């Protein structure tokens, strides 16, 4: 035996074999094969095959590749060793969609996050952007609340603009989507809003990638500064065929409601307001009434009428599959959502077909088509007297919504100013002065009688052709259209105050179309030289043209309230005429990239894009945006290669320049005269003062970070530090009013700002047992912002928006206001501090003047406002924490989001403490009533609004932790499912917005009052609609 062995050891032998991936059995090129205990090794070829000459003593081979579990296999007698490599962290080898191509995660040097489609589709939200909340580091999502399809604010790595939009570019299947943020036009687009992203069927989304740094996003050049969201829709897979059905049914309630005074408290408080100002002479102003004539005094909790239990049914069907020659995915969805607000409804139907054919192996071509139509029965909310969260909160709890003698049984005024809520026996004025600050609508008929409808439609169609003339070279041409339209239909009823009563019925219809086409031509060439040098080249062009047309038409003075549509002969007033607008813009671009990878270890990439955008000054249209990025997979180096703890470590960095042009007003660079008629005379008037030098906002972005997988890849850690310097901010720069420029602003590149921060993502597999597993994913983002430059010629004056400022050296949106000094215990008068923070200024309700503590008359004004350093409405830190537990066929998911470091101005609270005659926040019961009383609520004094003026009294911390979803799923046992003839069946239940932990006293600390396009005054909570708490039962089945 010994001799035999020695004999063999003197010989060498040849081992051959094939490496495949365990996932799909495809050949694995580039895998390393090494003899255990020696340095001899080779890499597999394109077919995954290898040939290795080994010494006879070699007993086993080791196979490895980045992102795969290392395997050791004994050399057997046959000399053939075949191995299927199993991916250790799937995400590393996964192919990611990046700008104009794809890449494996490990080859990527930029900062990028990926969210799976399943994480999005499972949430009961109208648009995918809402579902991104807390899912990845660096991305902050704020919903406006429970109004269906209302806009969502998306901020990637902080607020990157002051006047223009900070929303990221959204790219769907490689084609940049329309950038209109709201399909509404009437009421300045701020009445019933519709977020066009709600036109994308969340169930069609395969994955979403978020490009955060310049290294990742530079190929989107002038539109990349706010980050880029790449949405990839589902495609069929060769060799499969599936039918899947998904049915979601849910009901929702408001997660929180304001606490208002009840009927008795209302009477007490309002009579006290009047008594304190006018004395006994005023008598009783707040009195019980029996408006609904049921024989007892009316008591109404308006929240019971304004809010309701919403119900949603969302059903979709998808078919997918394919062969080597063709793949397909097609889907159909119909969702019927009834929101938590009275009358609010959204019906959505959508279809999609993604088909790709590959007739020969060097050519493929595909079509991606989708069509969505929705009907959105909108309701007005904040910002409108007729809005539900205004009228509903303000309405007296001592009158009924109903009056058997009123129009259609509702309690409405029918004499004098018609169409408001009738106030029964209440007395509303004294000495000719009305106690009513804002008139109150009856929310029910205001919704029932009138219409605020949107009918948005969206057709997208992409067609592409990809040719591979020689190995490694791909030429792609892709053409996409994106046609959005909205038919907006508003009807104001003659028996409801406002437009309806003024015009004896008014229909306003707007048809908006946004047509866009994009044509891309690009090539990608990948070549590996001598097994170690991978070179990748990309280059291309892109053209984009967008035209937006709106047409308005009106009809007023209807023959009878029966007629409420534009129908010939049914209305008299034709002098309102019609209206409209057309704007267009174009983008012409060239781009290229070159990357080199040595030995799968060292990465370098340079990329550049040149854009010309028609909105900019004639000589300033072209901008060039370069970036360079580096990467190093340290775990491939000898000193880490055999580490037991660190399985993968990649260090990467990037620096580049990208731009922002989003939200730039049309033709902003031009000085224009527009139509300006004077009653019956036609005229031209100056429409805007342009700035011929207008160009991009420039963001210089630096990013450094690492990705690590540790302890048999049970821990995945990604850390990034970023620093963004933004210059040439496109400001609608305020101009002195006295200069007389239209709108007192000129869009110009002035000002600069800095954002820096850190992002951490930690994925862990805490427990992995046969039947039980627990995985967690935690992400954290911390951000610091500084404004570094403003309009020098304006004396560097702060740019002010609702008590927040853009001010040099401070964070964008720093609050500036007077400081609350409490209530004077002796008199009950409200007090504030002078700018020195010490001198108290007391508002003497009697004299309606300010006085010092010694009684001298003084004034309180702008000079007393102070910067509340470090306090802004923008969260300084935020993130999410997801936990998934599986036990046999059960899975439990707990998904949390958190944010904080910001302050909210509780305008709902301040306005609901009003001294006018209306309902109040129940906290008004703590008002000052007797000398010596210590309280924070001043003495009541009818019509005295100074008491509730803007001050730190209503500023609160915005920190919160929200249990976004709790979900429990059960996958039916295969044996039962098979018997039924299904592939798999899963039943799950979910609670969305289960609970929130916060110190904030308002309805919800997740406020988005100023919505998409505003970067200042973001922390104002002004009667936003509470978020829904949604309970969903989901059934999905696959055949």
């Amino acid at each position: 035996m010994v001799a035999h062995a020695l004999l063999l050891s003197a010989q060498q032998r040849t081992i051959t074999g094939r490496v495949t991936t365990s996932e799909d059995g495809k050949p694995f090129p580039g895998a390393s094969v090494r003899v255990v205990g020696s340095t001899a090794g080779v890499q597999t070829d394109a077919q995954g095959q290898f040939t290795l000459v080994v010494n006879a003593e070699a007993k086993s081979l080791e196979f490895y590749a980045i992102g795969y579990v290392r395997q050791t296999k004994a050399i057997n007698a046959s000399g053939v060793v075949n191995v299927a490599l199993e991916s250790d962290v799937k995400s590393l080898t996964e192919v990611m969609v990046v700008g104009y191509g794809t890449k494996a995660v490990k080859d990527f040097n930029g900062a990028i996050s990926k969210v799976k489609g399943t994480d999005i589709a499972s949430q009961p939200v109208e648009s995918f952007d809402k579902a991104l909340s807390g899912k990845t580091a660096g991305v902050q999502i704020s919903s406006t609340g429970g109004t269906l399809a209302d806009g969502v604010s998306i901020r990637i790595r902080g607020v990157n603009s002051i006047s223009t939009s900070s929303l990221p570019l959204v790219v769907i299947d490689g084609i940049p989507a329309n950038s209109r943020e709201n399909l509404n036009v009437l009421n300045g687009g701020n009445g019933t809003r519709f977020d066009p992203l709600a036109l994308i069927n969340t169930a069609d989304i395969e994955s979403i990638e978020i490009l955060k740094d310049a290294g990742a996003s530079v190929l989107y050049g002038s539109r990349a500064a706010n980050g880029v969201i790449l949405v990839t829709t589902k495609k069929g897979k060769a060799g499969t065929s599936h039918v899947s059905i998904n049915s979601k049914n849910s009901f929702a309630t408001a997660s929180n409601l304001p606490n208002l005074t009840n009927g008795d408290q209302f009477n007490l408080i309002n009579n006290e307001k009047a008594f304190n100002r006018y004395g006994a002479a005023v008598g009783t102003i707040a009195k019980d009434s029996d408006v609904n004539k049921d024989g007892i005094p009316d008591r109404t909790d308006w929240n019971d009428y304004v809010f309701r239990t919403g119900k949603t049914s969302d059903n979709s069907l998808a078919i997918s599959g394919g062969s080597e020659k063709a793949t397909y995915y097609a889907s159909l969805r119909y969702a019927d959502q009834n929101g938590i607000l009275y009358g609010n409804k959204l019906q959505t139907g959508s279809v999609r077909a993604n088909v790709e054919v590959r007739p020969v192996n060097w050519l493929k071509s595909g079509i991606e088509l989708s069509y969505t139509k929705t009907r959105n029965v909108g309701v007005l909310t904040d910002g409108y007297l007729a809005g539900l969260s205004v009228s509903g909160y303000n309405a007296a709890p001592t009158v009924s919504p109903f009056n058997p003698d009123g129009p259609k049984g509702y309690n409405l005024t029918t004499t004098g100013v018609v169409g408001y809520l009738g106030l029964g026996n209440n007395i509303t004025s004294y000495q000719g002065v009305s106690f009513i600050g804002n008139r109150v609508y009856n929310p029910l008929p205001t919704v029932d009688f009138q219409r605020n409808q949107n009918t948005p439609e969206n057709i997208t169609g992409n067609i592409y052709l990809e040719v591979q003339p020689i190995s490694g070279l791909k030429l792609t041409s892709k053409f996409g259209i994106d046609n959005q339209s909205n038919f907006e239909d508003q009807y104001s009823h003659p028996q409801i105050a406002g437009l309806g009563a003024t015009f004896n019925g008014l229909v306003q219809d707007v048809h908006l179309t946004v047509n866009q086409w994009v044509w891309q031509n690009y090539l990608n060439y990948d070549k590996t030289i001598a097994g170690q040098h991978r070179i990748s080249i990309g280059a291309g062009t892109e053209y984009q043209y967008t035209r937006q047309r709106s047409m308005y038409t009106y009809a007023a003075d209807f023959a009878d309230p029966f007629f409420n549509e534009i129908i010939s002969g049914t209305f008299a007033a034709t002098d309102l005429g019609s209206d409209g607008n057309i704007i267009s813009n174009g983008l012409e671009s060239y781009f290229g990239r070159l990357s080199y990878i040595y030995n799968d270890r060292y990465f370098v990439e340079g990329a550049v894009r040149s854009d010309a955008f028609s909105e900019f000054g004639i000589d300033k249209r072209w901008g060039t945006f370069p970036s360079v990025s580096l990467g190093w997979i340290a775990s491939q180096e000898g000193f880490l290669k055999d580490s037991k703890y660190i399985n993968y470590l990649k260090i990467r960095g990037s620096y580049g320049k990208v731009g922002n042009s989003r939200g730039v007003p049309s033709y902003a660079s031009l000085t224009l005269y527009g139509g300006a008629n004077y009653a019956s005379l036609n005229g031209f008037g100056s429409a805007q003062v342009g700035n011929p030098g207008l160009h991009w906002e420039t963001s210089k972005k630096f990013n450094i970070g690492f990705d690590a997988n540790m302890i048999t890849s049970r821990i995945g850690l990604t850390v990034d530090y970023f620093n963004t310097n933004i210059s040439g901010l496109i400001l609608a720069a305020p101009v002195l009013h006295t200069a007389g420029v239209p709108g007192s602003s000129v869009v110009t590149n002035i000002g600069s700002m800095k954002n820096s921060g850190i992002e951490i993502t930690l994925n862990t597999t805490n427990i992995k047992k046969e039947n039980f597993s627990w995985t967690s994913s935690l992400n954290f983002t911390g951000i610091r912002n500084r404004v570094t430059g403003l309009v020098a010629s304006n004396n560097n004056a702060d740019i002010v928006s609702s008590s927040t400022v853009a001010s040099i050296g401070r964070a964008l949106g720093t609050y500036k206001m007077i400081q609350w000094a409490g209530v004077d215990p002796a008199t009950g008068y409200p007090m504030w501090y002078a700018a020195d923070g010490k001198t108290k200024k007391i508002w003497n309700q009697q004299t309606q003047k300010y006085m010092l503590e010694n009684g001298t008359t003084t004034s309180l004004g702008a000079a007393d406002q102070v910067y509340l350093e470090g306090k802004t409405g923008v969260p300084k830190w935020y993130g999410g924490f997801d936990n998934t537990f599986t036990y046999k066929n059960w899975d439990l998911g707990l998904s949390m989001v958190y944010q904080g470091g910001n302050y909210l101005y509780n305008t709902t609270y301040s306005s609901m403490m009003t001294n006018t005659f209306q309902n109040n926040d129940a906290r008004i019961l703590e008002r000052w009533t007797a000398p010596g009383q210590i309280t924070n609520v001043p003495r009541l004094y009818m019509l005295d609004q100074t008491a509730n003026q803007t001050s730190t009294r209503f500023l609160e911390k915005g920190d919160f932790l929200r249990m976004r979803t709790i979900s429990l799923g059960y996958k039916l046992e295969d044996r039962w499912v098979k018997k039924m003839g299904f592939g798999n069946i899963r039943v799950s239940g979910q609670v969305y917005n289960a609970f929130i932990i916060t110190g904030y006293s308002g309805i919800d600390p997740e406020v988005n009052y100023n919505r998409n396009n505003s970067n200042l005054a973001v922390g104002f909570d002004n009667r936003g609609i509470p978020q829904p708490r949604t309970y969903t039962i989901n059934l999905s089945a696959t055949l």
Partner: protein
Amino acid sequence: MIKKYFNTKIGFGLVCGILVLTSSCQKEIFEDPINSLSPQAAFETAERVEKSAIGMYNALQNANFFGGRVLIYADIRATDVNPPTYFGSLPQFTSVTSSETNTQLAWQGAYASIGEANLFMKNLEAAKNVVSANKAEQYIGEAKFIRALCYFYLVNLWAQPYKFTANATHLGVPLVLKSVEDPFSAENQLPRATVAEVYTQIENDLLAAENQLPNDYGDPSFSDITRATKAAARALLARVYLYKGDYTKAITFADKVITANKYGLNDDPATTFKTYNSKESIFSIGMSVSDNPNTNNALGQHYGATKRGDINISAEYIGLLDQTKDLRFKNLVQQVAGSYWTLKYPATESWVPVLRYAEILLIKAEALAYLATTVDPNAVALVNVIRGRSLADIIAPTTKADLIELILKERRLELAFEGQGIFDFLRTGRGIPAHSIIAEQPYGSDYVILPIPLYDLQKNPKLVPNKGY
């Protein structure tokens, strides 16, 4: 076979490559605006210059200024109406601050209207040869009239009255007389001119306009009232001189309007407010349903009992009227839901009355009364013309002081809600009496004039704030 296959591949590749290289199409995707004109184009032909001149009046319709709000701001701080809750602190004097929104918007609106007139004059200068010399003169006259009108309200709302200091050397408002070249230039940071300087500028503009403007536009239904005319310039001059206390000139210009025999009193005081082109109207801002300053800002909305219904009439004003006789009560006041409401603005599209014949008669009466040493019979007669028209009892004052008091009372009765309420108190050296829930605001109080808006104060270090704010 292999060769053919290869060619097809390369062929496709070449086609794609050619597409990539030749697909520049900036011409097709970069379009000039089709919703607007360049300034050059807007002054290219005589017809277009005419339309650009019309644009100045469009700017004058500014919803926060001469769309009607400026009249409201002068009246809600006086005593003819109850302090409307809708306008927040504005009617309450002491609680107004420099960041008060309505104040800021009105200031902005005034300077936007002025800016449009200045811009028009600048662009016209460059396009002089496009129109006839006469037309050019007329347009400049219109621009100057508009500018003077805006400055008149600006200086009276934001500065103490002319007679507050001996030579009106107290602070007025910044005088912007040229269209700004660079919106961000430090040259735009103008200090406040004195009240005297502002009045001088108003006078100069109006005197020039008087020469340049036509008597009419041959359009009695609209332009003759809604565009500036000689009579409009003279009427405003009469008012300016009255405010200054230059009574001789006030009479001169009032007489110029009166002797033109073009204007007169309607039989019914309500006619002026229903038939906008009646003989009583000298200058009004025209409105139509489609360009009224909308349901939130129109006079007809704020004053309309069944519209927004924000502003109702004070009991004190009603008390001054003889309810059994005076047509100004019978035809111009209605009682709805327990309150009195004016009928001067019956529709959302009601025109904004600026200068009308009745005021000219009262200006003359007042000027005569001041100049005379005793009771001026002509002044009494003029007042009685006004009263007689409304079937009110005639007056027969026995002293000069009585006469002046009766004229001022008559102005209240006749011109109420037309935007001179607070001015009539201040220019005559009187404070605002206590009314409704508002305490007395003595003459000279810091709070009887509006604060210079914080927005401009922050950006213009040369701007001095009004005292007390």
